[in-house]
C-alpha cells in the first residue's frame, strides 16, 4: 500500500496533468527549494515552483507526466516518470517547434515533519529533449 508521502507526491503530478496548479502546489512548503538540474534553475519558494510548472505548460500545452513509478524512502519519495507533450509554445528563448517530445525523468521529493514537500530535485536530459525538438544535434556516440 502506498504511503501517505507517496500519495501526496503522486497527487502533485495528477494535479499538474489536470492543469490544477493551485492543487499541485497545495502540499508544497512555502519555502521549498526545488532544483531542476535539467533546466538549470532553482525555485526557492512555492510561488517560484508554481511558475516553473506554468513554464512547462506554456511550452507544452498538452504536457503530461506518465508511467509513474514511486519509491518510498521514508521522508523522501523518488518518482520516475516520462514527461510527454507537444512543444506548441515558447520555452524561454526557444520558439515553439510544433514537435512532440518524450523525456524520462526522476524527481527526488523530500517531506518535512508537517507532511509538506520541503525540497525537490529533478533530473532529466535536456539534450535529449532539444534533439527531439530539432533544437540541437545528437552527438556521435
Amino acid at each position, binding site marked *: 500500500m502506498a504511503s501517505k508521502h507517496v500519495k501526496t507526491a503522486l497527487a502533485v503530478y495528477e494535479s499538474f496533468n489536470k492543469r490544477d496548479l493551485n492543487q499541485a502546489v497545495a502540499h508544497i512548503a512555502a519555502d521549498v527549494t526545488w532544483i531542476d538540474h535539467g533546466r*538549470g534553475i532553482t525555485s526557492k519558494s512555492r510561488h517560484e515552483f508554481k511558475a516553473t510548472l506554468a513554464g512547462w505548460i506554456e511550452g507544452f500545452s498538452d504536457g503530461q507526466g506518465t508511467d509513474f513509478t514511486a519509491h518510498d524512502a521514508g521522508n523522501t519519495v523518488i518518482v520516475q516518470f516520462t514527461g510527454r507533450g507537444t512543444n506548441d509554445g515558447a520555452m524561454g528563448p526557444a520558439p515553439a517547434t510544433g514537435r512532440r517530445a518524450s523525456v524520462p525523468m526522476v524527481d527526488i521529493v523530500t517531506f518535512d515533519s508537517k507532511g509538506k514537500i520541503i525540497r525537490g530535485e529533478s533530473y532529466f536530459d535536456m539534450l535529449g529533449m532539444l534533439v527531439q525538438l530539432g533544437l540541437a544535434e545528437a552527438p556521435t556516440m
Partner: protein
Amino acid sequence: MSKNVDAVRAGFEVWNKRDLKKAASFYAENATLVDHSRETTYKGRDQIIGSWDELVKAFPDAEATDLKTYDAGDTVVTTFVGRGTNKGELMGMAATDRRVSTPVCSVARFDSKGLIAQEDQYSDTFSLLVQLGHAKAPVQA
C-alpha cells in the same frame, strides 16, 4: 544503513579507485543499466564495464562525489556529482582538457540475492557539452 545501501556505497568507492571489475561484482551477471542521457541500455556485467571503460578513457580522473543515498527497500536511489577532466575523446568529440561536474541520479533495483538487477541513470548531457565548450549557453527552458 541497509545492506543494499552498503552495497551501493561500496560499489561507488571501488569505482572511484578504478577497480571496475569489483564495482561490477555488485551487479547481477545479467543486470541491465539504462543510461537515459545516452538513450543506451547496457546488458550484463561486460557491457556495463565497457561503458565505464569508455567514460574513464574520456575522463581518467573521473570520480563520483557528494553521494546521497535513499533507502527504498529493494531499491536504492543515489544522487551524486560526477566530476572529471576531459583528457580523451568523448562521443566522437576531441578532448578539451576542461573539468566538468554533472549531477547524476541513479535508481538501482536489487534482486533477492542482494545484487543490482537494474539501474536507471539520469543526467543532463547538454550541460556537460556546454562545460566542455561543445555547445553554446543553455537554452533556458
